[in-house]
């Protein structure tokens, strides 16, 4: 049981690995960006895993209901922020990608590098 309680962290680690590998090993820009979103999503998982408390519920305090255990609200707030930051980065990166495609005619980084070397 104890190890199962750490499963979230393992998945967090594996997702980080997959994301980073995707960023580093792929030369296709869109693929790298998808890797980047996985990489960021892994961190969301780390934070949200921290907020869970046994027998708890979402931190919405209803009147008349006593002795309820509430999940930790702070990591949730942080991740709300981080999700929005993530989509902003993605949107900007995609806009750059579209412009790269228009300027170079390809979105493969290795080809772009070759083209730049020629000029």
């Amino acid at each position, binding site marked *: 049981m104890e190890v199962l309680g750490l499963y979230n962290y393992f998945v967090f680690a594996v997702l980080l690995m997959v*994301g980073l590998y995707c960023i*580093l090993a792929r030369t296709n820009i869109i693929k790298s960006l998808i890797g980047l*979103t996985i990489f960021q999503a892994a961190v969301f998982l780390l934070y949200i895993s921290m907020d869970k*408390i046994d027998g708890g519920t979402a*931190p919405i305090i209803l*009147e008349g209901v006593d002795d309820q255990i509430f999940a930790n609200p702070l990591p949730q707030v942080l991740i709300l*922020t981080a999700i929005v930051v993530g989509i902003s980065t993605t949107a*900007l990166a995609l806009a750059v990608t579209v412009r790269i495609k228009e300027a170079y005619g390809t979105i493969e980084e290795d080809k772009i590098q070759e083209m730049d070397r020629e000029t």
Partner: protein
Amino acid sequence: MITIVFSLFLLTMLVIVAVAILRTDNLFTAVMLSGIFSLIMAANFFILDAADVALTEAVIGAGISTVLFLSALALTAEYDRSPPVGTWVPLLTSSALGGVIIFATFQAPRLGDPNAIVHKHVAPWYLERTPELIDVPNVVTAVLASFRGYDTLGEVFVVFIACIGVMSLLGRVRPRRDSIEEGEFEKRSDNLRHHLIPRVVGKMLVPFIVLFGLYVQFHGDFGPGGGFQAGALIAAGVILYALVEGGPRGRELVPEWFSSMLVALGALTYTAVGVVSMMRGGRFLDYSALSHDPIHGQHMGILIIEAGVGMTVAGVMITIFHAFSRRGIR
């Protein structure tokens, strides 16, 4: 117990989907899978008692982000043609990263441990004091909008800057039209208009999506939701309209000048609340200073800033979508 089983299942699915994304060469498939990835992630957040985050991840991760990726795909490429070489360095780097984390977290508190330090220091204060200091049922909203309102202000500016960036990148020089034949220009610009069923159903859904968005906006104090989710939902409604009726009609519904002004106005509203509270003798973003009664002031402040957030996020998402879709047909 049942949570752990659910959680195990969903987490394993997450890993499987992530690996599938890595392995596929078809970018379209990868984008679809990443939408699924976000949806599973959202379900998982829900199990972990983070309703607000689950809602946000579903709307933004599975909805908006997928649409953006697809719009970008339509303008760029369909296949990943990475050469399968040089995989050693990435493999080593990422395994090292994973190893370090697994090593580090081995003695981390297990999932749901009530004695974890995380639950002992700052968090209980929020849960205890929110009813008397701010008096809204949803503690997440209280922390987001008031206790850590400065962070949220920063976040609004992050989306604002993303919008500015996309506009300055895609709004400027228009691509040559000769790359698209004349007849196809018409066809591409009206997307699904010749398809009766999606058009009718889509139009039927739009008002309900927007209504739901407004509900989420104003119900954020009492249940999961708030400006971010609401803004994204309303934007999703408009985007759906633009998809079924074609980009030009979508831009008639919400003109670009309007959506980009909305972005700036929302950000300005939020900052203005801070400045007004300074002028009334409080600290920056101290909503208690807004009214004679501190709690009333807090309620007012939260309402206004959530409205600002909603405006900005809706404006940003619509503007970005317009920027991408217009790029495709010109």
